[in-house]
């Protein structure tokens, strides 16, 4: 599981560089996310554009990353492929996360837009 990140003025964009978040890598994903939010600014965007498969373990790992943020820090999502979006939609998790179409709109988006 490889995560890369780019820092902007007040937002860190984390990109998953593999194409699946599943039971085999969920724990590693959680650990790396934890590190990148710990050291990140008040707003973190997870870009899932490369991910074309996410199972319920992967979903749980994303939720776990959300639960690991600091007070006042927010974790948002960007670039969900249709199959990933479907899992968020079916489980209603799309109501929990602010989801942007692309990382670019996320970066432009006001941090208090929700």
């Amino acid at each position, binding site marked *: 599981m490889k995560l890369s990140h780019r820092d902007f003025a007040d937002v860190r964009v984390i990109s998953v560089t593999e194409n699946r978040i599943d039971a*085999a890598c969920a724990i590693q994903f959680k650990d790396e996310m934890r590190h990148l939010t710990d050291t990140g600014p008040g707003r973190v965007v997870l870009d899932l554009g490369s991910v074309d498969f996410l199972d319920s373990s992967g979903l749980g790992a994303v939720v776990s990353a959300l639960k690991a943020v600091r007070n006042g820090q927010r974790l948002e999502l960007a670039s969900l492929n249709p199959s990933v979006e479907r899992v968020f939609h079916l*489980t209603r998790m799309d109501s929990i996360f602010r989801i942007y179409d692309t990382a670019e709109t996320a970066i432009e988006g006001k941090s208090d837009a929700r």
Partner: protein
Amino acid sequence: MRAERGFAPPGAPATLSGVSVKELRLDVSATPYGVQIGLTTLRDGLRGIGIDDSELPSVELVLAEIFNNIVEHALAETEDGVIEVGLQCTPNGLWITVEDDGNPMPDGKPPLGLLPAVDVPVCDLPEGGFGWFLIRELAHDLTYTREGDKNLLVFRMAVGRGE
């Protein structure tokens, strides 16, 4: 992939004469990585038996949830467990059988798969418990039988009826 063998999932409709039987069998090693490899292999196999690319994700998701549960629960104590999968394209969809020789389902039934509450504080959000909810959302005509010391799941995915 193993050599093909006779395939007639209980509950599946008899294959209509004149319709070409398109089937696939696979042994999946019951570990997280085995599941990953199995699912990736199945992508190509499913395309080969007539499943459209747009239909692959739901099949892959249901199989992932079933396989993960078998790895984590049914075969948790087993070192070299194997999951046997059969897939058959029929006019009313893709029939799938999944067999393992692990522990039976709790109470002899697959879980109800109720959606965990998500309108709760962030700290109370569920990190699991979505597996059987997703299976039941996406699979049809699901039956579970315990046969001797084997678990057998049979169900239908509403895919592969294209053209």
